[in-house]
């Protein structure tokens, strides 16, 4: 029934109730005439409103629709606004106001390699006083020619914008050209400490204090995935060089319109109450705004893929002057962007040369295309058999929700458990232990641990892979991608894992991947930590702080091995993750002091002290896959040999 019929029915009922009373006062005929007149006038008014309402249809041209702010949406959708307001999507980019700043600016002083940085606050304005970027550049140039510079010159920079609010907060200073420059010291929210950017990303430690920030502009790098409705608007010189920016966004952070499309038309149309009631009674929602759950699965997932997928813009589809992102939720993402599944593919699409010193190129994908960093979850999911063969049953929203109570991983209730997989694989519910070969109530029977292990690095830690896979040793042996089994069974070798996996149903019963003698006899974690590349080392080092891994492998051997392996690493993040393993296994007091960003000599002294402490307790139990001396300490000859054979190319993960 339409709203007009409801209105007329309501008026008629009211009139029927009122007419007898009216008749008592002014006579029956007059009363009826008055009632009919009233019904006609009020019903007619509503009918005119309905006529004025535009039909329930999507905008003729989405790109012509203007944006409104989330505050506008809140007026009619307060509960959705509130649930969004709790998320870290909202706070991905913020202005530097007291309520948004997470770092300690109470006259804090942070020292990195002898250079001090002062973090201060004056009223509601925040400052970072640190080594002047130009002075540092001159110093590097002079030092390159063997010269020496005087004491460092510092610059006091106002903090204008913030990126991140969950794990890490980065600070941006806006210069006179409209460029937001990343500042070299950031705040690690999880550890509640200041960290130099050299210790925040998976990359070798350069000598230039500003290396991770030089040439970095929020306007180029963070803009498109950390904001809604981004337009870069570079100011270009006569030779095409960028002179500055007039960057605009519909809203800082990821807000309503990132997923629901621009809302100006929706807001304008629905000022008419008759249209709102029409939409409500139609039951199919209002097409003047995008509702992801009403979209086909692929279109729905592409909204997430816009920022959680690997994309390169299709230049011909983007405005060459403004660089405005033309994608609107609900449209085909591939119309405006190329998807890629390896860094080599990305470089090819961008017509970029691969520098030989960056071999292997990939800081973003494992060799089998599995994403290695966050922000590529869509790629992982799309490669999964569950997605490919799921006939549209599986989507991001199978497990995640944007308007729930859990802002951390935005999972639906119950989705941290096997109920996530039982949505499609309910038959495993009753045969969990026989399928997993682990006790049903153990972490080995949590589907995620075997099929979505922590093979993804970003933000000082590892995250679950979104490529749902069956564990196999092949990728570990050939490409150094740690497998799910050895990320828990840190003390076991690849050979042991292969034998265990061969006993699973539908497997041949025999090992099929040819493994080296070392892979058969030495713990896979120790092997990867000693001689793997930085990607493998980071993933494995992080596994040492996983409580499930500590239970499965025992942690009594962590100290002697990690203290021998972590300080040899030229990637600060690997040092941090390995030391985090020690801290979680043995406690802060026993695992310290150690600063993964201290100068090499200081770190070496700290490591020596730690090693002596842990070596005082030799490993007495039988651990067949750990290279141990008869005295129960790590066999340094073997470890040194492995370290010498380390494959350690330069690679960078800027996440």
């Amino acid at each position, binding site marked *: 029934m339409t*709203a007009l019929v*409801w*209105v007329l029915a*309501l*008026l008629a009922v*009211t009139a029927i109730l*009122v007419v007898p*009373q*009216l008749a*008592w*006062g*002014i006579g029956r005929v007059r009363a009826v005439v008055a009632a009919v007149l*009233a019904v006609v006038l*009020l019903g007619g008014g509503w009918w005119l409103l309905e006529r004025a309402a535009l039909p329930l249809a999507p905008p003729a041209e989405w790109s012509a629709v203007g944006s409104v702010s989330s505050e506008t949406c809140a*007026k*009619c*959708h*307060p*509960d959705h606004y*509130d649930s969004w307001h709790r998320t870290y999507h909202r706070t991905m980019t913020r202005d530097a106001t007291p309520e948004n700043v997470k770092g300690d600016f109470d006259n804090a002083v942070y020292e990195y390699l002898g250079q001090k940085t002062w973090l201060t606050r004056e009223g509601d304005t925040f400052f970072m006083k640190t080594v002047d970027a130009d002075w540092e550049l001159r110093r590097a140039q002079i030092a390159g020619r063997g010269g020496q510079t005087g004491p460092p010159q510092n610059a006091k920079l106002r903090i204008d914008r913030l990126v991140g609010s969950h794990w890490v907060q980065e600070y941006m200073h806006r210069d006179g050209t409209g460029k937001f420059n990343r500042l070299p010291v950031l705040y690690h929210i999880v550890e509640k400490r200041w960290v130099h950017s050299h210790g925040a990303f998976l990359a070798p430690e350069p000598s230039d204090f500003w290396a991770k920030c030089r040439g970095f502009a929020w306007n180029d790098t963070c803009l498109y995935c950390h904001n809604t409705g981004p337009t870069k608007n570079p100011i270009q010189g006569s030779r095409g060089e960028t002179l500055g920016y007039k960057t605009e966004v519909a809203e800082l952070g990821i807000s309503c319109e990132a997923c629901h499309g621009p809302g100006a038309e929706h807001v304008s149309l629905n000022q008419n*109450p008759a249209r*709102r*009631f029409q939409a*409500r009674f139609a039951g199919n929602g209002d097409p003047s705004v995008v509702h992801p759950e009403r979209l086909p699965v692929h279109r729905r997932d592409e909204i997430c893929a816009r920022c959680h997928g690997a994309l390169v813009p299709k230049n011909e589809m983007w405005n060459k002057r403004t660089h405005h992102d033309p994608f609107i939720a609900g449209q085909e993402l591939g119309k405006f962007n190329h998807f890629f599944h390896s860094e080599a593919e990305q470089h090819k699409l961008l017509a970029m040369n691969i520098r030989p010193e960056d071999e292997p190129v990939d800081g973003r994908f494992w060799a089998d295309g599995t994403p290695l960093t966050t922000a590529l979850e869509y790629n992982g999911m799309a490669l999964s058999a569950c997605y490919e063969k799921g006939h549209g049953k599986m989507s991001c929203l199978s497990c995640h929700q944007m308007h729930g109570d859990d802002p951390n991983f935005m999972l639906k209730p119950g989705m941290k458990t096997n109920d996530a997989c039982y949505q499609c694989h309910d038959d495993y519910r009753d045969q969990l232990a026989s399928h997993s070969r682990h006790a049903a109530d153990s972490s080995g029977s949590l589907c995620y641990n075997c099929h979505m292990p922590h093979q993804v690095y970003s933000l000082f830690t590892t995250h679950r892979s979104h490529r749902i896979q069956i564990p196999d040793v092949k990728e570990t042996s050939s490409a150094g991608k740690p497998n799910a089994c050895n990320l828990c069974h840190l003390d076991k070798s690849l050979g042991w894992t292969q034998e265990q996996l061969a006993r699973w149903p539908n497997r041949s019963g025999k090992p099929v991947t040819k493994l080296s003698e070392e892979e058969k006899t030495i713990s896979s974690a120790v092997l990867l930590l000693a001689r793997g590349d930085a990607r493998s080392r980071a993933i494995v080092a992080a596994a040492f702080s996983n409580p499930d891994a500590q239970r499965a492998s025992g942690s009594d051997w962590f100290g002697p091995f990690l203290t021998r392996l972590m300080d040899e690493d030229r990637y600060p993040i690997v040092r941090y993750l390995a030391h985090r393993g020690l801290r979680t296994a043995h406690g802060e007091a026993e695992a310290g002091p150690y600063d993964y960003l201290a100068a090499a000599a200081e770190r070496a002294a700290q490591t020596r002290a730690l090693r002596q402490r842990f070596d005082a307790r030799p490993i007495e139990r039988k651990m067949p896959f750990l290279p141990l001396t008869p005295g129960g300490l790590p066999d340094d000859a073997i470890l040194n040999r492995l370290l010498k054979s380390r494959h350690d190319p330069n690679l960078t993960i800027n996440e």
Partner: protein
Amino acid sequence: MNDPLADLRQRLARRHHLLGWWALLIFLSLGIGLETLHGFKIGFYLDRANEVRRLLWTLAHAHGTLLALVNIAFALGVTQFGVWSERRLKVASFFLIDALVLLPAGFFLGGIGPSEGDPSLGVLLVPIGALFLLAGVGLVAWSATLKSKQE
């Protein structure tokens, strides 16, 4: 000698007293009910998602109470002042009584099933009730303004 208009004024005064005081009891009780919902932090009433419900039920309580007092005031005054014809008196009386029912009922029903910031369709009783109230108060004001023949 019996004056039919004076009888009518008496009868209506009694009717408005009766309705006014009972309505006052009902709508004050509603206020206590709403306070109770506050006291026990009932999400159905207090959650931000239910802001429209809270607003409308508060309005139902406030309008109901106020209109009950208006009806009591009418009851007290109808025998005391104003120049009334029988017709005008009857119509003003029923307008005030219907406003007393329709306005709070519209607000209350509108708050039962709100959606995305909009009340439910029951809220349409509110403008009808508002028109009745306006008309009723207008008639009372008119009668109060007129001068009797004795004056």
